[in-house]
């Protein structure tokens, strides 16, 4: 007799547990229009918000006079674990002091090799480079992933550095 009772109670309890599960999904089905969590990506591009610390890709800050804070010290290049930064520079005599100084030619950034570890940004003594939030990094050709971060004709400016470090 006990076996029969067990048999039917097992069936009943099993059925109840299934119904409870259906209750959960059913509840969310009824509420679904309010609870949708997926984002309609290309449409909501303008309203997408990222944290200011979000690391998407490296960029170099230029001010209005096309000045940069990078003095080609190459710290970022040494600190990068993957060799994704190449600093191309030459020595040039400073017109005021006459001392020979490093001048940045090209700041080459290989996005294809970058792992977004943020070490270069932390290491930069002049805060010349930063991570931005432009996350759409897909391109049609691999060569487009190699970027030159400094704009043509951009010059190093000590004032720009000082202003930034003050903050």
């Amino acid at each position: 007799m006990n076996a029969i009772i067990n048999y039917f109670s097992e069936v009943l309890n099993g059925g109840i547990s299934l119904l409870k599960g259906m209750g959960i999904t059913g509840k969310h089905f009824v509420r679904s229009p309010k609870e949708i969590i997926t984002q309609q990506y290309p449409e909501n591009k303008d309203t997408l918000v990222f944290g200011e610390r979000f690391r998407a890709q490296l960029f170099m800050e230029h001010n209005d006079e096309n000045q940069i804070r990078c003095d080609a010290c190459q710290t970022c290049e040494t600190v990068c674990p993957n060799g994704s930064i190449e600093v191309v520079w030459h020595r040039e005599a400073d017109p005021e002091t006459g001392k020979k100084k490093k001048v940045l030619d090209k700041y080459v950034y290989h996005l294809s090799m970058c792992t977004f570890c943020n070490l270069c940004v932390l290491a930069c003594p002049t805060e010349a480079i930063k991570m931005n939030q432009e996350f759409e990094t897909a391109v049609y050709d691999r060569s487009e992933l190699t970027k030159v971060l400094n704009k043509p004709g951009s010059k190093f400016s000590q004032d720009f550095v000082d202003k930034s470090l003050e903050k």
Partner: protein
Amino acid sequence: MYDFSKMTGAIHEWLSSLMPSILVTTIEWVLIGVVFLALFAILGLVLVILERKIAGFFQFRLGPNRVGPYGMFQTVADTVKLLLKELVSTNKVDKFLYNVAPFFVIIAPLMIMAVIPYGFGLTAYDINVGLLFVMAVSSIGVVGILLAGWSSNNKYSLIGAMRSGAVIISYELSMGLSALLAIVLLAGSLNLNDIVMSQQAGWWLFRGHIPAIIAFVIYIITGTAETNRVPFDLTEAESELGAGYHAEYSGIKFAFFFLSEFVNMFIISALAVTIFLGGWLPFHIPGWEGFNNSMNYIPGPVWFFLKTGVIIFLLMWFRWTFPRLRIDQILTLEWKYLLPISLLNLVLMAFVVMMGWVF
């Protein structure tokens, strides 16, 4: 209640007055064939988009929303894609069986669709052993699945097909023997039209009370198993077998399997509606004359598809809630639980009918 046989009869008479009877029969066959193929295709398209949309809402998603308003034409686009796709097959498939399997799978639901009453007098093939015919024909589908699994020369496909064979053969037993027979006892006929007409006083689900409700629950469980849907989807078992028996199929051949799965779901629901929920009969509440009269204005086919939709939603609800059973558990469920219970239920139903304890 509008009798659709008047309409079909008028068409028949009009055609007969124009041409000899052989031509009339041929034209009528072609006409019926075209109508059912169209119904088949439309059902497939609608059910797939419905499933995907409902799945989306169960999962905090929107479902497809790119093609057309609310993504309504997504399945149309998918079908076009499948039609245009190359039919790829591996080198060592058994060519003949491999090519013939999708047709087996798709023929079974098409044949069953012929006997289902969609409205008053709206049945393509009104035979007196309708229910028996349904049970017999629905077994053809599994042959197609077994052939597909065997001929694909793929171990995953074979496992899936063998599982499917085991499941469908065992579940047909309690489905036919008990769940459906219980209602046949009540209705006293195997003809689906007669079964519907016998429910004018009230649906069998309510009139047959306890045994009918048990039979209904068992029918829904076995029906889910017959259509290979979650929690009995172990023939496809995405996380175990990849895609199961249709892993090696592509293009329109894959679409055949895919569509027949959804049309099978429709058929299972349609049968449930026909047998338990009064088919195309409107919803009546005894005593509420005004309500009942207003319900009568809604045409039969609308009622039929509405009720079928409810059962289909129930099946989808299962699919998006439950985990999958293992093969031995499925067989245990059938042989140790469903079959004994449904046999007992059959005896109970016979007793109820004998004593006349039917509302």
